[in-house]
């Protein structure tokens, strides 16, 4: 077992930054969803590692990760449903083209 948990925090930070940069940079709604999944995964690594290295309880951290994964699945289902619906109405999935709510 690696003694220093900060290595894993660094890995999670790196993954989060990659996901965040992808989210900012991308125009496609599907690619934004991919970036969000990467960011959620970095949060999951933090949950699992902090649960192992601190005294809050190994099982509690695992439950937090399971809840996070289930939430991500729900979010992906709704997100992809919205993307499909928008594609049928507008014929595109570019996020910059969705301006109906802009006013």
């Amino acid at each position, binding site marked *: *077992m*690696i003694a220093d948990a900060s*290595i*894993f925090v660094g*890995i999670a930070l*790196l*993954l989060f930054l*990659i*996901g965040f*940069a*992808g989210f900012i*940079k*991308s*125009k*496609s709604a*599907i*690619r934004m*969803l*991919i*970036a969000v*999944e*990467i960011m959620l*995964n970095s949060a*999951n*690594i933090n949950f*699992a*590692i902090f*649960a*192992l290295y601190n005294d809050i309880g*190994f*099982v*509690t*951290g*695992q*439950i937090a*990760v*399971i*809840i996070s*994964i*289930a*939430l*991500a*699945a*729900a*979010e*992906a*289902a*709704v997100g*992809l*449903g*919205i*993307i*499909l*619906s928008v*594609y*049928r*109405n507008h*014929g*595109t*999935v570019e996020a910059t083209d969705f301006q109906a709510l802009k006013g």
Partner: protein
Amino acid sequence: MMAYLIPPELFELLEYFVLFILVIYTTGSAYLAVSVKSVYHAVLWLIFCLLGVAMIFLLYAGSALLLVIQIIVYAGGITILMLFAISLSGKEAMFESLGSGKLMDWRLSFAGAFLLFMVGAYILSQVSSIFWTLQDLASRGIDPEFPDKAIDAVLIGQLAEQMFTLHGGTILTLGLLVLGAMLGSVYLVKKEVEDV
């Protein structure tokens, strides 16, 4: 007290080396997932990134359950849903901008990444995990002939118990949320089909 199978210094070095390989694999796949032009290829790179995170769960967070859930729900479920959405969104959804995404030979890259994961998983399952388990048992002075078989069972038991007692309300709310998300997404898509 049993002797160590391999010297602790070498063992620690091995741990760091495997972590280094995993970090390169995971972050490299994540970077490619957000940077390649084809969205279809981006989802395939996302699968490899999720597999890398699953390996971190197993080897460094000590949880085989999270590995299984990560592979089944994330790498097997969500990504396939994304591939379906891309297929249904027409050809213009495949590429973010016009022009082909010839960043590299993608067939070779996917084959390489898949091969790396399979070879890594095979080596880890055949050699390292056995070594690591025995090393752990040896360092704690437990005879590998009679390991404490109840450790895993106790962990899973605790997990199940806490899920339905301490975190019962959360799990129930989560179930309702997932049901709502499923019905909502079906309604969203079905309504459009009826309109057309």
